[in-house]
């Protein structure tokens, strides 16, 4: 673990939708501060629709209309120098993509062209990013890379439909890591896969990380996957990070009331006692609640929660929480 390689400062990214001539603003990422360290696996979890995928798009410098950067910045540290992503030209961004930062979006298995053999997808990818002279060179590179990652090189001859969903997902990850990026951003890479294949995908991500000594940012709803691979976890609610800590502390000492619900709702084998989910409905990001966005659903809500968004309080060296209860130092007494 080391210094920040990727930083977000007061980041705000909103969708601006035009509905019957009226503009509707969806505050999907709302004032996020984040420091992702060199060589760590940073997990992000949170409610469905709370803005996780949008945050990843912003971190990957992949903002496109209707999504707009409304404030704050994303900073990369490339070869020791800090770069504000907003100052990069399209061409510079293109060059950084895949060599510095690789982004595997949600549902990305479909990026493999169904009528092309995997080999040809690789060749196109290599030729568009690298200066490859000889014909066989790209193929040799692809082969070598797959072998390094423990994937059978014969899949190069297959069409996507001949591969299982899990193998397609691993091929996608392999492709994204071919140019040895310093940061890999993965959005739900194991969703809808069986647990054996999921384990294979996580195994691959871990292998890649220990080989390249790089950084992984991973979004998933599967808290078991977070527990298995993440070093630190950020919990997101209504466009904001509300808690951040080491994986051990998120599972062992969850502190924000939303995080507590999330962890308490996890079913465990051998235990069928009824589990509760978060009461109430998710907030509208077009019209988020005032103050702490969790206040309409929070059993501990106080007057101040309705008026003012709490800042972060450091409850342990590597554990910060945005909640008035810890701000006052009173949290935890009741529980």
């Amino acid at each position: 673990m080391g210094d920040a390689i990727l930083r977000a400062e007061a980041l705000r990214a909103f969708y601006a939708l035009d509905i019957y001539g009226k503009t509707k603003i969806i505050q999907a990422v709302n004032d996020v501060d984040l420091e992702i360290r060199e060589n760590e696996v940073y997990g992000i979890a949170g409610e469905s629709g709370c803005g996780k995928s949008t945050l990843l798009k912003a971190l990957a410098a992949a903002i496109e209309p209707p999504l707009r950067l409304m404030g704050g910045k994303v900073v990369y540290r490339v070869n020791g120098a800090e770069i504000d992503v907003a100052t990069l030209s399209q061409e510079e961004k293109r060059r950084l993509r895949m060599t510095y930062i690789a982004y595997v979006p949600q549902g990305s298995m479909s990026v493999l062209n169904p009528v092309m053999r995997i080999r040809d997808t690789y060749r196109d990818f290599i030729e568009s990013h690298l200066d490859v002279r000889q014909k066989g060179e790209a193929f040799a590179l692809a082969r070598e890379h797959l072998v390094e990652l423990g994937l059978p090189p014969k899949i190069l001859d297959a069409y996507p439909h001949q591969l299982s969903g899990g193998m397609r997902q691993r091929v996608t990850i392999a492709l994204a890591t071919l140019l040895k990026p310093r940061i890999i951003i993965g959005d739900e890479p194991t969703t809808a896969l069986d647990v054996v294949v999921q384990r294979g995908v996580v195994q691959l991500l871990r292998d890649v990380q220990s080989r390249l000594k790089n950084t992984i940012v991973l979004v998933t709803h599967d808290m078991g996957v977070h527990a298995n691979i993440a070093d630190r976890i950020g919990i997101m609610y209504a466009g904001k990070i509300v808690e951040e800590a080491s994986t051990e502390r998120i599972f062992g000492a969850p502190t924000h009331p939303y995080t507590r619900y999330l962890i308490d709702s996890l079913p465990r084998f051998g235990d069928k006692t009824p589990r509760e989910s978060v009461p109430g409905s998710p907030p509208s990001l077009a019209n988020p609640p005032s103050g702490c966005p969790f206040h309409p659903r929070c059993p501990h809500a106080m007057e101040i929660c309705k008026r003012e968004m709490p800042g972060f309080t450091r409850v342990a060296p590597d554990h910060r929480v945005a909640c008035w209860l810890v701000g006052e130092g009173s949290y935890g007494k009741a529980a």
Partner: protein
Amino acid sequence: MEKLLEVENLTKIFTLGSVLSRVKITAVDNISFFIRPAEIFALAGESGCGKSTTARIIMGFERATSGAIIHNGRREGKNEKVWFTEGIQAIFQDPFATFNPLRTVERYFFETIQNYRLATSKQEAIERIDAKLRLVGLTYDDLAGKYPSEFSGGQLQRISIARALLTDPKLIIADEPVSMVDASLRMSIVNLFKRLRDDFGVSVLYITHDLATAYYVCDRIAIMFRGKIVEMGTVEQVLMAPKHPYTQLLRASIPEADPARRWQGVIRLSDIEQDEYLRQGCRFAGRCPHVMDVCRRVTPPQFDVDGAQVACHLYAEMSRSDEVLIASQGQ
């Protein structure tokens, strides 16, 4: 024993590829199971093992290559599709794909009411819609005039369950209804299934990769691997004491929500899907730590092991061995 739905020797073969390189995939390979009234039955297993295909055949969206579906004691026949799926409703994985973004959500409800002639006036229709929405924690006013984009994934999933309930189904087929939502919403959806079972006698075929929620909410479970059911029994039997080597691997691979108990060791996955589909004998033989000679030659039949059904040669001696061996060689 009362059976609401019975699947009997169901097989589905897909043909892929061009005329020159034709590949046959046995997506579902001679499977049988049943669901009782007021029972939640899980279908789990490998990605691509044939779960959705099975569900689509039960719902009548796809035709079986062979085998039968028996619903309420009546066999599905060529001309009986119309009544057949009555009493069965489906919900799917992606709530956003279920609803067209340009149509209001309530229109789907009114359409179902019309199709099944469930009300004689608009007022009656609204009352019925409201009653079903209240079962999932919403009201008619919550969705009147709104478009799908105005709801979260979890809300939309609950809305699609409410719509499925309009016809008072006896069986809900839920194909990965929780895989796109967060842990808390998963709980609210499976808790809803539980309530439907306990208070209204509804059965659910719950297709999922999330074995922890399956354990929490289901009565029985079938584990599929490459088109076959390899193990079936109560969730206690199958998930707490798995017997088939594939189920054991599956169980050991469930990521624990506990960073102190991370996965140990590495696992091997199959390379190309078709390799295992074309294999003779047991399809898990290529990866099974207990593989024997017979496994590569003979397809293992189902053995009864402590009340669970297990399709694995390891359990041959444990049952009436002679009979079983003869039976299996005949396959």
